[in-house]
């Protein structure tokens, strides 16, 4: 898969894809195949931690997606 295809994927699918890859390949290989650097992945919110990809879902003002756990959803 190349970078553009990866970017075209839904957010949730991206993480799945990365972890399927991580089951058989090392980090450098995955990066090379995607044509992306570690920094680029980090900027998108994906981090490689102990042989697994993880996501940091909130990026300050970088996103407006809400957790769904805010006040109104919790306390009707």
């Amino acid at each position, binding site marked *: 898969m190349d970078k553009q295809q990866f970017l075209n994927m839904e957010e949730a699918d991206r993480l799945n894809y990365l972890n399927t890859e991580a089951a058989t390949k090392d980090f450098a290989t995955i990066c090379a195949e995607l044509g992306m650097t570690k920094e680029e992945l980090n900027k998108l919110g994906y981090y490689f931690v102990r042989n697994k990809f993880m996501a940091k879902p909130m990026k*300050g003002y970088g996103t407006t997606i809400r957790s769904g756990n*805010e*006040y109104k959803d919790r*306390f009707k």
Partner: protein
Amino acid sequence: MEKEWKKQQSDGTIVVRTCGWSPPGDHPVGCGMKLHIKDGRLVKVEGDPEHPISQGRLCVRCLTLPEYVHHPQRVIYPMKRVGKRGEDKWQRISWDEALDIICDKIRYYTDNYGAESIIVFGGTGREACLYYYPLAFSAIGTPNCCYPLSGWSCYGPRCSITDYILGAGYPEIDFAGFYPDRYDNPNYKRPEYLVIWGKNPLMSNPDGFYGHSIIDLMKRGTKIICVDPRITWLGTRAEHVLQLRPGTDTALALGLLNVIINEDLYDHDFVENWTYGFEELKQRVQEYPPEKVAEITWVPKEKIIEVARIIGTAKPCPIQWGLAVDENPNGVQLGHAILALIAITGNLDVPGGITIGPPAALMGKWRMETRSQLSEELWAKRIGAEQWPALSTAMATTHPDETLDTLETGKPYKLRMGWFNSSNFITATCSAQPDRWYRALQSLEFNVVQDTFMTPTAMAFADIFLPLPTFAEHDGVVLTHFGRNAIFMGAINKAFEVGECKSDIEVCIELGKRLHPEHWPWNTAEEFFNDQLKPEFGFDFNDLREKGVFQPPYEYKKYEKGLLRFDGEPGFNTVTGLVELCSTLFEAWGEDPLPYYKEPPYSPYSTPELFKEYPFILTSGARTFTSFHSEHRQVPTLREITPDPIVEIHPEAAERLGIKDGDWVYLENMFGKCKQKAKLTKTINPKVVHASHGWWYPEKPAEEPSLFGVWESNINTLIPHKHIGKLGFGAPFKCLICKVYKAED
């Protein structure tokens, strides 16, 4: 609270209930009060006993509000400069004319140089903090919104560290603020001990925390531990004071962790289930045994051990972190270590411990969304975003130090227009090297300043001055901690009018309607607040007025209930889903993933040669009851209580230098100098001096070069530019060196 918020008395006086937020006053503390209006004038301010947090109490800043509101020097009409910059020559104009001039300029710069050539500066703590971001992103359309304090050294670092390490809103001690019946609520547990670290909340009411809640807790039996380079009044009532060398806090935190981990005083259950990287942290703290930490911090080894044991065993024992975390190039590590202390001792999100806000801010959705009104391409031009990924991931601003560089060099592009929103930062408030900023800011071609008084910053730079109303003169919503962990939300009610002032949100709406009408459907502040409140809470602004304040219910242990993460899974909203004692993000950004101690850039140990010439450690920034940073210097009753900028110095040191109590002295170092009045006190270490910030003299000449005497006592001229931590946060405002000598002039 009573439903009626506005009443008329038999003598015609109108009494309006409201909650306070600067201008003037301080952070979003939102104390309850009743404003008495007679013949269009504010005649009296009276505390509101029904308010669940302040309970009738008011500090002198609100008690003197009439003096501020009706002050003869207040600017209450839009003004256009008719002389040269720095000359005190102004012409009153209408709002229409002011906005026409401004909009023409914004369009001109946007069309010719790109919107990024316009920059919005914001200040500390005022209501403007909620609006200067949308002002930039949505009303003007520039990605450049700047909080100019070197290393973003106020609140931002703590919020960011919390986001990286806990993935949550702001951590605050649990002072039963969520409960209408407060400390008596059965779900509440009184802290056994409370550690107050680098903070004096009695005077500062930080971020909206009601400072005197500490007194409430002490009366109920909570014991206090202060970490402070000075013995404060609170320190004299504390069980322990760790009187450390300024700037060495991180070593102390690591030393405390060392004892707690090695003596097995931590909460095993929490550590096993909810933290990441404990083994690594355990290894790291071995480098910080109490003996070594004692040597670094000047705090006796026995004290470190004793306090560590208390923190490890007292339940609950929250730690309240202060500005000392932010104003230190080693501060990210300090914040990390303090969060680790809180977490491994089982004090996170438990009754009487540390409460944490959910990841999305209360009433914050609109603010965040305004940022997406900018194209990615424009967003990428934000100054310093590329060079400082850690800071620009968590903060929506430019990098402050990088912004000064850009002003000086014109790289990567030239800034041409400035908008100063409630920020008087050439006074010793939120900038390092304010004299350098002052010179660099000369390059801006056109400036707008919004404030209540003609400040030194306004006098130097404003081409158009837009008058802000005080909180007594406009409608608004105050929410503590800027919504990041709001204890309550209160209605700010317009009680009367002075001149022609417009609030931050009103100016945003009017400007937005002219420049980007698609984003600004509201006609009034009330309409705007209805739209913010209704979807999130189900009530509108008028309902909030009738409620007076609204306390959202609080859930403890949110991490067990899936209330912190976007996917609804248990855990924390971090990369690993756990409290990151070892940070994946720090590692990704090229920083050590574990906390470590680094000596301040200038100190007896890092620069021993310089220290011979400048033999005092300089710390600054402690607050007084009588002012909020640079506010209030023109209020007679308050100035009578605090007439001069005070530098505290130990009598032994003063004697050596021939300085007597009340003498004016110079403080000087490699970067600058200023004059303050000596107060001799044994509450400070003989090798340390503490100076006051925020001083200017509204009674002195307004015009250049005086600018209300802004350079005379300006302590920030002694603080260097860009001496910041690896992630872009933290400047040494509280740990520099200087010499002191008697002023003969």
